[in-house]
């Protein structure tokens, strides 16, 4: 059994939460007491139908307003796959929560309301999916029941969205007509779309190939913690604890510790206290080195024949997630995996226009939800890879040192 992590996206009220509710309901993943609870809640609403969106809209404020505010995580499995679902909010105001859920997803389901077609928010979420290098995209054209299941409505939206997808370079796209509320094309193929040749949504989710999303070539091991028992019998024990975020490490491999570049050889690998010959992504392990060299938290152990970039001047695409504007000259902390350094914004180069998908001249300051390209200088060089090449070692966050809040998502170029 493997794991697929996916997220819903799209405009407010396009039916994201309803879709997740339907998927859980039709795959029999909802328990009776949970169903009873939402039935009770739904009766307070006018039409009397069960509101499946209540399955994920778990906060009081969400239920009162009938919108999603923050990501809800839901789980279900079929015989060969465990699914981790992030149900994202559609409101522009809460885009940062959508980015939160999307950053860990392998697949995004972008919902489009068949009556409205591709909207600004559809584009915004598609840009985010593209920036995050989302490996798989499902475009679900929802509320087909409200347009008489018409093929031409569907086709026109597919044509419109294909343009967006081409411009953004989205990969592995599936298009599907659905009615979340009626369950059409969700778990089973619906007879309402005889003209649709693809599979049901669940079938797509069950069969998307996820194993290839892991990079086994560029070995990267950020050190999180040094294990030193300092007891009598383990006097010289020194293990570097961390997660192999990409690639494969074997005993005997020649390694280099970045950013300083000290070299050594892997003398041992432990997983859960047991010696092994090799470790691969995404295993959490302990590495031992032949030589007593300086290695601490935040360093990245790599193989000498495959080095990351090590620089203190970075070109970065940023999703800005704070109400305080970002300006050239502002200082932040930049955290990439376990490494934290001081950083300053040298320059805003341009802003991405969400509607035209074109670069706009740089604004004096970036506002909440803006997507901008900036130059950042860090206090010391950091080891990284370009986000496009290696998602796990090219994503960083900006932290406001005064509020401690995470204010920016960085995709290093």
């Amino acid at each position, binding site marked *: *059994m*493997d*794991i697929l992590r996916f997220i819903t996206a799209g405009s407010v009220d396009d039916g994201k939460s309803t879709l997740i509710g339907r998927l859980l309901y039709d795959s029999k993943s909802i*328990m*009776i*007491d*949970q169903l009873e*609870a939402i039935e009770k809640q739904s009766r307070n609403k006018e039409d009397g139908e069960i509101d499946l969106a209540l*399955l994920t809209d*778990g*906060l*009081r404020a969400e*239920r009162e307003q009938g919108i999603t*505010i*923050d*990501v*809800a*995580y*839901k*789980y279900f499995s079929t015989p060969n796959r*465990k699914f981790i679902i992030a149900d994202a909010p559609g409101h522009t105001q809460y885009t940062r*929560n959508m*980015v*939160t859920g999307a*950053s*860990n997803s392998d697949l995004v389901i972008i919902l489009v309301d068949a009556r409205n077609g591709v909207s600004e928010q559809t584009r915004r979420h598609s840009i985010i999916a593209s920036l995050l290098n989302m490996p798989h995209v499902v475009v679900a054209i929802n509320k087909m029941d409200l347009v008489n299941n018409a093929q031409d409505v569907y086709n026109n939206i597919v044509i419109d969205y294909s343009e967006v997808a081409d411009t953004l370079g989205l990969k592995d796209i599936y298009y599907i007509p659905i009615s979340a509320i009626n369950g059409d094309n969700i778990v089973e193929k619906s007879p309402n779309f005889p003209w649709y040749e693809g599979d049901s949504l669940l079938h797509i989710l069950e069969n998307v190939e996820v*194993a*290839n999303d*892991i990079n*086994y070539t560029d070995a990267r091991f950020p050190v*999180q*913690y040094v*294990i*030193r*028992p300092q007891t009598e019998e383990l006097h010289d*024990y020194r*293990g570097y*604890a*961390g*997660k192999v975020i990409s690639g*494969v490490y074997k005993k005997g491999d020649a390694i280099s510790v970045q950013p300083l570049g000290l070299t050594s050889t892997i003398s041992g690998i432990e997983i*859960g*206290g*047991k010696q092994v010959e090799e470790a*691969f992504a*995404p*295993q*959490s392990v302990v590495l031992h080195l032949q030589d007593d060299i300086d290695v601490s*938290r935040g360093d990245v152990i790599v193989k000498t024949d495959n080095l990351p970039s090590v620089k203190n001047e970075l070109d970065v695409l940023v999703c800005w997630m704070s109400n305080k504007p970002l300006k050239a000259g502002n200082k932040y902390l930049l955290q*990439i*995996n*376990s490494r934290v350094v001081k950083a300053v914004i040298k320059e805003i180069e341009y802003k991405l226009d969400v509607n035209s998908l074109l670069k706009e001249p740089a604004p004096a300051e970036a506002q909440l939800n803006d997507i901008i390209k900036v130059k950042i200088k860090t206090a010391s060089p950091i080891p990284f890879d370009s986000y496009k090449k290696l998602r*796990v070692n090219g*994503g*960083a*966050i900006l*932290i406001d040192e005064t509020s*401690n809040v*995470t204010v920016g*998502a960085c995709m290093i170029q």
Partner: protein
Amino acid sequence: MINENIVTEDHKNTLSNEGGAAYHRLDYLDQLESESIHIFREVAGQFERPALLFSGGKDSIVLVHLALKAFRPGKFPFPLVHIDTGHNFQEALDARDELVNKIGEKLIVRNVADTIKEKNLTEQKGKFASRNALQTFTLLDTIEEFKFDACIGGARRDEEKARAKERIFSVRDEFGQWDPKLQRPELWNTYNGRIHKGENVRVFPISNWTELDIWNYIRRNEIELPSIYFAHNREVLEYEGQLVATSEFIQLDPGDKVSVKKVRYRTVGDMTCTAAVESGATNIDDIIKEIIATKTSERGETRIDDKVSEAAMEDRKKGGYF
């Protein structure tokens, strides 16, 4: 109790076909385990005074097991902390002490009864008078006493609809309060644990595990659990469809239906607010079969404390609960 020589052979990660993706493939339980270990080590790397909140239930026992994998042969960089309501199942306390003894880590126990005395708190009254709400006072006092900056807990997102919304690193203010409308973004696996003095972070390493994942993991790693998780005969009170163990902590009224039934527990909390389920499952395989077949959620079937209001859990979290 916990098997320290962890067996990994039974879940072969390495198939044939050297080199490619098919050769290196991690089973879902290994993926979850690795994610949790990574979170544990981030806590160790980022905080000065973390603590692991240990309740004695299966989730916190799995947490301890994951911590062993994260830090052995070193010591845990945190103590285990038990906020003791005084309403525990004896079996759970015994299992707790046996586990702590076996792994040789530090256990801190703080009693809700002491807080009640010191602070003159008013205890709930009635049939199932519970100390669940008062527990938060003791927890916050304990955090202050030891200046804990991070508290690791065994909450899972599949348990409850408010938990489904919480970040893995969940920042709480000085009063322990959660603000669900203002959570920090949490990107990739990069955890931002920076806080101001007086604040603390609740960390949930098994956020993405389901009840079934926990049981499968317990089976695979041969983790020992308190005996009450397995079917046994017990005197129970039948109350509004739930089976509550009779004890000195609950009040029996004339006309109450009390009988001996074969039951097991799906969750282990206080005797006053945890219900048992009828079951003949005396081993893990049978329990897993029952869980796969069940039509009721874990909390729905066994927790009396969630039923009070629609948003009971959200409200408790806003007030400083785990």
